[in-house]
């Protein structure tokens, strides 16, 4: 028999709070994280037509290029890169955690079409990295020389929330001093076919680090990752994530199609990002975290609950984000663009 096994991943070490200190978006039609809290006008934001070109991005798959953009914005936002986009943090102990389900789907299907038509001699040798599902994490690590643990979470619609929880685990377990978490899905023919809906480019990155490290370098924490669970249904996920006081939830970033038992949190303000942006798959959870950071950073009241999965999926994930204490008054608050 199992001795006191538990699937909880809640507040594993209260001594080491993990906070969000930077956010970066590469999403067409979304200019700022604050936009995610309002009806989207669909204007501004990332321009895939011009934004995916450049020497640094050449020969890389579309998802990796999108992810590199989002990571650059987030690292800058966190104050961890200099004016030349060189990483200034602890590179040996900074983790990269990618969430994606369809990042290399187009590359895989294009390769098999080429082989069927021309044999392997028709393939480009430059396509080798993207046959492996972890290609994006490798490119982000190489770009900023990030030599800590390097994870790619391909876990269905909960991937983004799962990725944030694993980033926190890496930090609490002291395998990493910081993590860049990127949720990314590219637009493409294969992606559109498998989703059954028009696919869109979406990449979002957040930087997470221990609250004490953020405080010591004067970074401004936007949100604290307080609870998480991946469980069989919403009720179990909320219980395991420690969402016991539902009255304290001021904003619920919900997956309306999957949630089912919405009455559990009838009081909270609800936003379903996919109802405006279309299917986000692996980008969803990280985009929910970006929206949560914007909400909490604006001084709005209440905690933020993000959920994904449910009906039609293998599980439901829940992530609870709470306001971060402001930096100590003795510290000069650093400016953020």
């Amino acid at each position, binding site marked *: 028999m199992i001795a006191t096994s538990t699937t909880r991943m809640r507040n594993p070490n209260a001594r080491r709070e993990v906070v969000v200190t930077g956010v970066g978006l590469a999403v067409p039609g979304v200019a700022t994280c604050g936009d995610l809290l309002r009806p989207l006008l669909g204007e501004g934001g990332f321009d895939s037509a011009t934004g995916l070109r450049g020497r640094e991005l050449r020969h890389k798959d579309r998802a990796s290029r999108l992810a590199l953009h989002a990571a650059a914005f987030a690292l800058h936002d966190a104050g961890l890169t200099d004016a030349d986009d060189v990483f200034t943090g602890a590179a040996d102990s900074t983790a990269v955690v990618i969430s994606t389900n369809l990042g290399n789907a187009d590359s895989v299907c294009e390769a098999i079409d080429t082989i069927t038509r021309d044999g392997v001699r028709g393939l480009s040798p430059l396509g080798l990295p993207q046959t492996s599902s972890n290609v994006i994490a490798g490119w982000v690590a190489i770009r900023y020389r990030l030599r800590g643990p390097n994870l790619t979470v391909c876990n269905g619609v909960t991937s983004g929330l799962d990725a944030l929880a694993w980033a926190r685990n890496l930090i609490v377990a002291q395998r990493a001093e910081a993590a860049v978490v990127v949720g990314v899905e590219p637009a493409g023919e294969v992606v559109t076919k498998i989703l059954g809906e028009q696919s869109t480019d979406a990449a979002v990155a957040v930087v997470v680090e221990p609250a004490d490290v953020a405080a010591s370098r004067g970074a401004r924490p936007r949100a604290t990752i307080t609870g998480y669970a991946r469980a069989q249904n919403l009720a179990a996920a909320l219980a395991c994530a420690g969402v016991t006081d539902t009255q304290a939830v001021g904003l619920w970033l919900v997956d309306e199609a999957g949630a089912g038992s919405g009455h559990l949190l009838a009081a909270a303000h609800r936003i379903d990002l996919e109802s405006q942006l279309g299917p986000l*798959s692996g980008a969803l959870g990280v985009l929910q975290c970006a929206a949560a950071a914007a909400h909490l950073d604006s001084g709005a009241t209440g905690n933020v609950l993000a959920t994904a999965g449910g009906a039609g999926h293998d599980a439901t994930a829940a992530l609870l984000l709470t306001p971060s204490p402001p930096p100590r008054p003795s510290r000069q608050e650093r400016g953020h663009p």
Partner: protein
Amino acid sequence: MTWDITGMAAVANIGASPREIFAALCAGRESRKLLKVFDPAKYRAAYAYEIDDRPKGGDIPRRATGWLTTVVGQAAADAGLGEDLSQVPVLVGTTMREQRSLELWWRDDADVALEDLHFGTALKAAFGASTTYTFAGACAASLYTLGMATDLIELGIADTVVVAGTDAATESGFGTLDRVQNGIPDALRPFDATHKGMLMGEGAAAVVVQRAGTADAPVHARVRGVSMNCDAHHATAPDPDGITRAVRDAYRRAGVGAQDIDLVMLHGSGTPLGDLTESSVLRDIFHGAGASPPMTAIKAMTGHTLGGSGLLSLVMAVLAMKEGTVPPVLGLTDPIPEAAGLDLVQGAPASGDLTFAQINAFGFGGINAVAIVEAAR
């Protein structure tokens, strides 16, 4: 802190259980077969290490998923966990996920859904498991999951975790590798001067890890520490600095030094650069640490089983420690000069008193993981 291994299972081309695979490795008979699943006319390489379980008439989707659920069920049974894993996290490391199913869906209209690409869907159906994770970590993936499992236990999040790795060969992966390798390997020959590159294998492995002392089942071995890092150097080529850091971090976590290691399960992918890099690093690591421990590389017989390969090496290390026997590297007769001084087991199994084993796994994206496992006595 140490962690108990209480359940093990594996499947590969040369056997459907850890014992069968270990016996085949010790017997050391050629295991490569002519490429069967893909149209050989499209490829330069003619051989692979496939699991020959496809029905007549072509490939089918979800074979990697099928092996995974088989080994997870067997490992859970070995540990006495039963068939209900609803309260047990299951961490799966993979290189390709179900990309072979994606290919069959795209080209041949196979019935495959988005939810089939990750393994939680099948683990839910088979075991009622919900705290499930699919990690794409190239060929270090399953040792990464072992490291994360030890973290879950150390952080008090779980007492029991199932870790696994699985991969089926994909046409896009086999084909692109075939395209880029300079030579055309007709066998995977790690550390031999004739090595020309990597050939894919297929398979899965699973291990149950438990908080020390909580298990009812006998303990197969103890995990002493698992390192995980990234070279951040090159998308596909290995980097000696990153690998060296991974080995030294594993020793630090395990509280051992090079002089304590009795067995090294090499990554040994048979690519000239990979073999050169790994042997050069190990020469430095073991320099001044006494006589080299025996080292072996199972991919010579299993092919490169990708995401699950690290965990398969670990399971073989556990059996080697139990038996006091190290299988030879099939086909190794003329080691590369960079491996001079390393005790690569050749020809016949070696015997010895083995207490600490080191398992190496390195992957695309510059991902490295090294595990240190101690015999349970």
